[in-house]
Every structure is written in structure tokens, then in C-alpha cells.
């Protein structure tokens, strides 16, 4: 047990120290916050998708539930953001229970499709209601939290770090419990699982509820961090898919895989988007700026990040079905 704790402890220490080392650098801190956020979201998704094998394509619904509930409460009252966050968890939990009651009657691909449908329903409802701000979204001008300077990004960095530690901690606990064994049994073979006394619906709902609650916490944090949300930012299908890709590329059904995936994908997306790669090649004289290749890099590489993302995903699915983490662990859990 001691040995197993060393690496997580080191990672945590690095996580805690990074903002102190890099000082006040909003750009880098912003990227790190996104890494932590995607790692937490993918880890939360992983409890349901990776361990129980129920691939939800609608996790944006729970993220959005946390974000919207928090923003609506904070924009009309001086509530403590933590209370607003808890309210978000309740709303996300309710959506999860209703979703579970409907979609867990379905298996396999049908479950995936139904989860998209539920998330789209949530998105359209929010888009068409008055008190959610409709298509305009919600803007939060001021928020207070125990005297912290919320114009700095550091409080949000640590907030996301706590969310990640919480999510990984819960995953580790679940994994070494009866529930963890039951979820994996459900993933492997539902009929066999039922014949061994496992109540399928109950355990799937349990996994969904845990997963949805953690996702909603991240949604609340994100909303207060950005202070502006609309359905495009927090309820989009694109978000659900990014969560899944992060988990798949990192390693589905492993404790550390989603964190790995986020550490790889978020900086990669940022590098491509900001065209660091193209500029570096040009400034180091590898490629003349006026050459056709140089022109191409300058003009188009920044737009190609989605393409690169897609290619990595396809390669991962073809050659690394257990994700990047699967490279290092050939066997075992």
C-alpha cells in the first residue's frame, strides 16, 4: 500500500506546487486549468463508461446542469458558491435518475444513442426557457468566495485540482469495492452478471449518479471561472465527445488513463490552435516562410487541430484499444 501511494503523492505535490513555480502566468495557468478540467470530466465519465461499460454520449447534460444551476442561483442572490454547486449536484442527480430510468432499459449502442437524445433534450429546453437566458446565456458580473481574489486564475486551478483528486479518490475507492467488481462484471457480460445476483439497473444507476454528480461539480467550477455560459459552451454534444475521446485516448477503465489523456490532448490542441509548431519551424529556418510549405503551415495548421485530434483518435482505436496507458501495462487492471 505504501509503495502504491508514492506516485500519486508525488503527482499531487507537483500539482500543488506548479502555480507557485510558474508565478502569475494567466496563459499557462489557463491551459493547466483546462487539463485538470478535462482530466476530471474524463475520470468521472470513466466510472460509468470505463468500469461499467456504459458509454454515455450525453455527459454535457450533467456539466451543463451544474453550470446553469450555479449561474442562475448566483445571478439572483448572494448565495455561497459552494451551496450553488451543491444545488447543481442535486439537479444533475435528478436528471441522472430520470435518464437512468429510461435509458438503462436499453443495451449497447442503443444506450449510447438514448444518452445523446436526453442531453439534446436538456440543451433544447435550456435554450428555449426564459430564466436560463435562452440563446443569450448568463453573464455573472461579480462573485465572492471567502475573500479570495477571483480575478486571479489560481483559485480555480486549485479548485479543479481538488475536484480531480476527489474524482480519482472516489474512482480508486469504487474500484476496490464490491460495487467496482459489480460494475466491471456488468461491462463484461450483463447476463452473466445478473445470474450472479447483480441487480443491473441498480448498479448502473449508482455509477451514473456518481459520475453525473462529479461532472456537475466541474460544470459549476467552470461557470464561476469563465463567468459566462450559454448552451454552446456547456451543453454541446462536442463537449460530451471531447470527454469520451480524452478517456479513450488515455485508457478506458483505468484509474490514471483519463488524466493521461487530458495531459496529452489539451496541450496538443493548444499547440495546434496557436500554431506554435508552424511558427517554430519557420523561425528556426527549417522551412522558409515564403515557400509553399511555409505558407501552408502559416495559413492552415491552426485550423487543422480538429483534424489532428481525429487522426489521433482513429490511430488509438486501431492500435491502442486500451489507450496510451495500455502501452505501459500489458496485463492486469
Amino acid at each position, binding site marked *: 500500500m505504501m509503495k502504491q501511494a508514492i506516485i500519486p503523492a508525488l503527482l499531487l505535490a507537483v500539482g500543488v506546487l506548479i502555480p507557485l513555480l510558474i508565478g502569475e502566468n494567466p496563459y499557462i495557468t489557463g491551459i493547466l486549468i483546462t487539463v485538470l478540467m478535462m482530466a476530471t470530466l474524463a475520470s468521472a465519465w470513466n466510472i460509468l463508461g470505463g468500469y461499467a461499460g456504459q458509454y454515455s454520449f450525453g455527459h454535457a447534460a450533467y456539466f451543463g446542469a451544474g453550470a446553469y444551476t450555479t449561474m442562475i442561483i448566483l445571478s439572483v442572490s448572494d448565495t455561497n458558491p459552494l451551496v450553488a454547486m451543491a444545488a447543481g449536484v442535486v439537479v444533475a442527480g435528478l436528471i441522472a435518475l430520470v435518464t437512468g430510468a429510461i435509458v438503462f432499459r436499453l443495451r449497447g449502442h442503443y444506450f449510447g444513442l438514448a444518452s445523446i437524445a436526453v442531453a439534446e433534450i436538456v440543451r433544447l429546453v435550456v435554450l428555449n426557457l426564459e430564466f436560463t437566458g435562452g440563446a443569450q446565456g448568463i453573464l455573472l458580473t461579480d462573485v465572492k468566495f471567502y475573500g479570495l481574489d477571483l480575478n486571479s486564475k489560481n483559485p480555480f486551478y486549485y479548485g479543479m485540482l481538488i475536484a480531480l483528486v476527489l474524482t480519482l479518490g472516489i474512482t480508486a475507492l469504487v474500484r476496490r469495492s464490491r460495487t467496482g467488481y459489480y460494475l466491471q*462484471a456488468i461491462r463484461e*457480460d450483463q447476463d*452473466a452478471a*445478473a*445470474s*450472479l*445476483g447483480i441487480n443491473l439497473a441498480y448498479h448502473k444507476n449508482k455509477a451514473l449518479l456518481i459520475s453525473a454528480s462529479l461532472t456537475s461539480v466541474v460544470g459549476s467550477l467552470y461557470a464561476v471561472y469563465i463567468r459566462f455560459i450559454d448552451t454552446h459552451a456547456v451543453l454541446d454534444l462536442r463537449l460530451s465527445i471531447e470527454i469520451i475521446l480524452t478517456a479513450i485516448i488515455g485508457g478506458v477503465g483505468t484509474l490514471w488513463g483519463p488524466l493521461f489523456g487530458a495531459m496529452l490532448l489539451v496541450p496538443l490542441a493548444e499547440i495546434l490552435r496557436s500554431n506554435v509548431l508552424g511558427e517554430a519551424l519557420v523561425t528556426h529556418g527549417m522551412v522558409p516562410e515564403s515557400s509553399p510549405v511555409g505558407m501552408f503551415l502559416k495559413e492552415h495548421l491552426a485550423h487543422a487541430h480538429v483534424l489532428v485530434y481525429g487522426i489521433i483518435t482513429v490511430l488509438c482505436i486501431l492500435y491502442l484499444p486500451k489507450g496510451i496507458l495500455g502501452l505501459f501495462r500489458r496485463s492486469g487492471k
Partner: protein
Amino acid sequence: MIKHLLNVNHVNKYFGGNVAISDVCFSVEEKQIFGLIGPNGAGKTTMFNCLTGYYPVSSGDIVFDGKKINNRRPDEVCRLGMARTWQRVKPLGSLSVLDNVMVGAFAVTRSLHTAEKMAREQIHVVGLDDYAAQLAGSLPIGLKKKLELARVLATKPKMLLLDEICGGLNHTETWAILDIIRSIRNSGTTIVFIEHDMKAVTSICDRIVVLNAGEKLAEGTPAEITSNRDVIEAYLGGGHHA
């Protein structure tokens, strides 16, 4: 006094207009090894699926250990003490043999420690000790069948339904499994046994029911069954059933 652990009363099962099981009755006594035999399509596995909650019965009653269990969910049936294996084995492929059996043991305990202890006991009973750490999906078929047995035994069933547990096994493996089944019965578990291998069935069963085309064709001791004209006809063909 003889106690009937399982009573099947006038059970019918239709799939649309097709009759899969027609008015079948039988009773299984405690600590019996009870054989359910019949040609392909006779309704044996359908009967197991009805007994264990995978199919709802169309009519009739199934009473297990004094409780009516028709149309209970499979996991409820398991927790009442009736557990089954599968004709086509269903290992939890990417989990180890030990983890597979622990999933079974969790039906009776919440503790990880106790579950592991119970699982190791059952793994020892079927002789899979050397394979405990292997992934279940990587085992050959003979060992997968033993794993099914260990896993289902770990749920501590009162009654065990074995669906062609010897199917696909060679002669030696078959007799090894039959020995295990006898010892399971001797430790107090009732067994209902679907099997094609007549030699295996007659050597081990106390009582046999023969199904044919969804109906009960005969019931009796192995000696009575092997000399029954209807049974011979159903198995060897010819006559009005073909």
C-alpha cells in the same frame, strides 16, 4: 420427510405462436441430482431461462424453496439460492479468474477480504488454483467451464442449474467435472443438470425428466428412462415425433 426444493407446475412458454414449453410439471427433491434431457430444441434451456428469470413464463407456477418465483428478476432468483451456469460459457473476459469468482462471492458478502477467501476456496474445489491470476478470457474451454462452476458455487446456492456443463469437453474432462458435481451434491447442494451425453446423465442422476418438443415425455430413474420406448424413439428418430 422428503422436501421438494423446486416445484414446476403446469408451466407453459410461448414465443408468439410457437410453443416452446407445454404444460410441464416436475419436482426436485433436496440433495437430488436431477437430469433434464431431450433432443435439440426440446425446451431444456428455455426451461432454465424460465426458472432463473430470464424469460417470463406464459402460464403456470414455479415454486422454489416455498416461494413463488415466476417472473422474478435473474439477480433475485440468484439471491434466493438458485444459481445457474451457461451452455455457452460467459466468462468476465478481461477480469482474472480470481476476480470472476469473487464477483460470485459478493452475492453473500460485502467484504473484499471475505470474498477473496471464499473465491479461493471455490477455485480450489474445481482445481483452478494455478490459474487464479490469469485473465478468464484467455482460458481454454475446459477451464472456462470449471471457472463457471467455481463462480456460481461462490454464490452459495441451495440449488445449482448446470446447462451442458460437459458440452465440448473430452472424456477425461467430463469425468473430472462429474466427480466435482458429485462432491458438490454431497456437501448439500441440489443439482439440476441439462446434458446431451446419455452416459454422463445416467451415471450421475438420481432422477430424470425427458423433454421432447416442449412436452414432458417421460420421468423416472435412469434405469427406467433408458428402457423407455418413447425415449428411445425420440432420441433415435423414426415414429410420429420426427
